[in-house]
């Protein structure tokens, strides 16, 4: 499972780093960033999908690996 933030859509609501702080962080202006590479560590799948489904701007994309 991989995750990415569409920086064109992200407006810095911060729901992702509220809900999944191990996976997402904020830049100096509060916009969301994926921490590390885009691979979701095992055990973080639920937090990732929670973050994606709570993003008001629909800026988080989850890519399921084949």
């Amino acid at each position, binding site marked *: 499972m991989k995750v990415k933030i569409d920086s064109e859509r992200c*407006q*810095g*609501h911060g729901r992702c780093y509220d809900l999944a702080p191990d996976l997402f962080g*904020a830049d*100096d202006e*509060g916009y969301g960033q994926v921490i590390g590479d885009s691979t979701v560590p095992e055990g973080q799948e639920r937090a990732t999908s929670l973050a994606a489904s*709570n993003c*008001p*701007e*629909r800026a988080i994309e989850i890519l399921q690996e084949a």
Partner: protein
Amino acid sequence: MTVDDRFSRDFQEMRADRPIGTRNEIVTGPVSDWATDFSHTESEWAADPYRIQDELRQRCPIAHTERFGGGWLPTRYEDVAAIAYDTDRFSSRAIIMGNFRPPPELAPIGGSPPISSDPPFHHHARKLLLPAFTKHAVARREAATRAFCHALIDALEGEDVVDAARDYAQHIPMRVIADMLGFPPEDGPRFRAFIEGVLEGVNLPPDERLGRMDNLFDYLLAQIHDHVGNPRDDLTTYLINVEFGGQKLSSSHVAGTMALLLIAGIDTTWSAIGASLWHLAKTPADRERLVADPGLLPTAMEELLRAYAPVTMARLVKEDMSWNGVDMKADDWILLSFPAANRDPAQFDRAGEVVIDREVNRHAAFGLGIHRCVGSHLARMELRVALEVWLERIPDFGLADPAAVTWASGQVRGPRTLPLRIG
């Protein structure tokens, strides 16, 4: 620092060349039909806008009014989102729907940047504010906010009935914003008058309304002069000194942004804290569950923000156009109701209920798109701390007199009188 020329003219002089906008006839009184004559300033709306909005969503779903010189009220999430994202066709040069429209030349800056700004200027004005309002930056204020909340509760000692809006909720954002701007904390009661003047006085005669606005800017100018003479580590000094594109901000930009932070930073959070306490006071099951399981609060808080979103914005239509089946005219208002969007059953299951453990909650309480509330992280911190401290100190409370609760009318809605029986 000696004299800063930007602030040497007083606002009396600046007023003389204030751009002339357009005024319309002020229409007040009971609404005949909410689909064709809506008004967000009538008491029926203040008491319960949700019933009205739910009905309109079924019937219209975009309501119209001839009041305020003409305007539209979309009630579906999809339409509210589309307008929030469409900064090409909808301008933010005025964001309080009333009986005065500033002239088109005021765009793209507007009177209180960045909330009143359109692209591309908006981006630069907003960028200046973002670092001070990140989650990380506002976390530094949490300990002081918590201590202040405890002090407010200490002062209620011995009372059986307290007004949670007047004696608790309103003071929290007033103190936080006064600290951030570097204003004297004892000026809180004046802030309340400014807020009422700007947000709740929309149907006053225009000259009286302008007069109230002038009082606010006179106050801000006095604060600016004080900070020019005695610079310190706060947002006022920051705005006076900050540069973009190699230039300091104009005096009207500095004062307009200060006005925005003062007004938008107080009324909104005060409303969110009050509405949350009102809900918990009348819903013992939710209150008891949160007292027993404080870890649920962050989730519950988002649901309370969805269900009782305090803030409605406005836009002005830029050009005549047909939009989703209605004929909009240039300069028509759009009353952009995030509260209505948040209760659209097409977007939320059990939209009309408060489900305090709702996990998927893509609500729009802080807006959508480029104007996302710049203070949202601050508001969330204040709301969380205010509720944590209240529930810890006063776990048992209920409405003392449901009929005595009053709500602010206009675009920011929350309890202004909230008598609670405690203990």
